[in-house]
């Protein structure tokens, strides 16, 4: 699969009273065409900001630091002028946000919000755009497309609203869809439907999906690859099956171990002691060190990224070839 989006050395910083905070600190990953990549991490790990950064939507006073590299099909996203950026937004990369209740404009009808996206990116007439909008509404699973078209967001249920957001995102036929916690605000039953919808659309349109989520369980079934984020950095990246079967980073391992299981012997739920540090209190060296059950002497330095083959990479001293790691 060819690379669609390449992210290198992404850093997002915010000014703070005592210097700068960097919630996204050196994130690197690649999304290939048509691939389903999941970006997983706890709240506060920086994954939402990463998603926003891809569209240069970091809210001020935050900013993307120099030295970061974002390339879409080889083109540098950070040097685009405003017109080109406008075309990329929605037209090449689209985003679906977490809470459809507040992310849709309450004073405009749903249909209008889809149509304006279509017409901003193509030369369709009003009638053509409307036809396409209704087709999109049907495609995302909204039965009464015409009814929905004329509705206001508050007249629809949460699940329907999220489908509308997806329809809006699809309107200009993007190559990459970023979904930022698209199901966190929804019921569990609706969650599964939305994820299935995203996957379907992906296969049908050949579109890549970057799913940002805190829920590992959601990821297992659908994602091709998973990247685990901790304290502003990606600590492990691997094809899904491989990650679940043989996690290389202690954090990933602990995350998987703490998932409740239906089968197997009954045991108290495992959790990771302590809490993820905020950008203001990041420890030096490996950021997971204070909570890591397998920390040892080299961990006081920043761990290198080691490739374990088969698309599996990990940022940990335990995997580094020449460290004295206890097996």
């Amino acid at each position, binding site marked *: 699969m060819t690379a669609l989006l390449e992210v290198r050395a992404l850093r997002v910083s915010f000014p703070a009273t005592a210097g700068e905070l960097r919630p996204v600190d050196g994130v690197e990953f690649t999304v290939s065409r048509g691939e389903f990549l999941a970006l997983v991490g706890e709240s506060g790990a920086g994954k939402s900001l990463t998603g926003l950064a891809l569209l240069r939507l970091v809210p001020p006073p935050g900013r993307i630091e120099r030295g970061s590299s974002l390339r879409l099909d080889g083109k540098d996203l950070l040097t685009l002028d405003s017109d080109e950026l*406008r*075309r990329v937004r929605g037209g090449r990369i689209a985003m679906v946000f977490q809470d459809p209740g507040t*992310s849709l*404009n309450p*004073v*405009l009808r749903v249909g209008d919000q889809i149509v304006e*996206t279509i017409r*901003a990116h193509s030369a369709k007439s009003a009638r053509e755009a409307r036809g396409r909008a209704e087709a999109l509404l049907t495609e995302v699973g909204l039965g009464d497309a015409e009814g929905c078209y004329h509705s206001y967001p*508050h007249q629809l249920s949460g699940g329907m609203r999220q489908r509308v957001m997806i329809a809006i995102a699809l309107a200009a036929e993007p190559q990459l869809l970023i979904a930022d916690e698209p199901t966190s605000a929804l019921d569990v039953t609706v969650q599964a439907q939305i994820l299935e919808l995203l996957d379907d659309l992906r296969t049908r349109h050949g579109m890549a999906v970057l799913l940002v989520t805190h829920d590992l369980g959601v990821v297992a079934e659908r994602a091709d690859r998973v990247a685990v984020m901790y304290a502003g950095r990606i600590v492990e990246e691997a094809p899904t099956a491989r990650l679940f079967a043989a996690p290389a980073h202690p954090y990933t391992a602990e995350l998987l171990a703490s998932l409740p299981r239906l089968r197997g012997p009954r045991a108290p739920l495992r959790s990771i002691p302590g809490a993820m540090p905020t950008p203001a209190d990041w420890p030096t060296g490996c950021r997971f060190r204070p909570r890591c059950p397998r920390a040892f002497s080299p961990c006081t330095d920043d761990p290198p990224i080691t490739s374990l083959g088969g698309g599996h990479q990990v940022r940990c001293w335990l995997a580094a070839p020449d460290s004295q790691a206890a097996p």
Partner: protein
Amino acid sequence: MTAWIRRRILQALVTFLIATTLAFFLMRLTPGDPLARLTEDKPLSPAAIASLRERFGIDQPITTQFVRFLSGVLRGDLGASIAYNGRPVTALIRERLPATLLLGGTALLLNFLLGVGIGVFQATRPGSKADRVLTVVSLASYATPSFWLGIVLATVFATELHWLPVAFMNEPYLVDAPFLERAGDTLRHLLLPALTLALVTFGATARYQRAAMAEALALPAVRTARAKGLPDWVVLWRHAWRNALGPMLALFGLWLPLLVTGSVFVEAIFAWPGLGTLAAEAIGARDYPVIMGVTILVSAAVVLGNLLADLLHRWLDPRLGAVA
């Protein structure tokens, strides 16, 4: 929904009635003789005074006067002018009202354009130098006395530069001129007073707009609009500004009294034949029925304005279950 409308209208009516009562008793109970002006220049015989008092109904006990007055108001009869020799106040008001509406309406439009433009501009670059300067400008607008600004502008543009006429609404020699020419002439006369009024009221609008817009720009819905790749002006006006309109409606309650108060001075300065000059003249002539009549009208306008603002607010926000 209609039950709410009915209740709200009833509430407005009650407020208006209480206000009218308040105004009546305030005026009547204040020490001072309503007929003083008439008796000032030439002393009248007690008989003449008595007949005058009877004519204007001041000889009755105050409660009777009040009942008469209130029933008159509800019928649309605001009494008779003392200075204009018994002409009904309503007729006087009707004569002058269109001029004031024209002036007020134009001033409101200018105020809106200026205030919204500046407020939105400030909200798009908060904390910048332009933002801070404009804040001070807005406050200065509010701090400027309308009568002073009127005098200054009239002197500069009319008396000195002769660009615009100094006073009145039309040049009398154009009475028989074709409509367009007269309209153009009125417009030329309208410019300075309307500008004066707008310049002293736009500050409040700008401040409100800036605040409402700053809130709207931070909405997640606006972030979505940006993410869709919509042009900047669409994001700004169709998405952000539409959501900023709600809080702006509270301005109606602010504008109307400001405009009305300002008109009294501005009209007087520019000899604009409206309610403001009527009121100013009535003050000088101690024509209490006229002062009262204008006050009642103005209060009605304020109450109506607030009512409209509430109704509009309901209508604009589809979430509140209005007839969208």
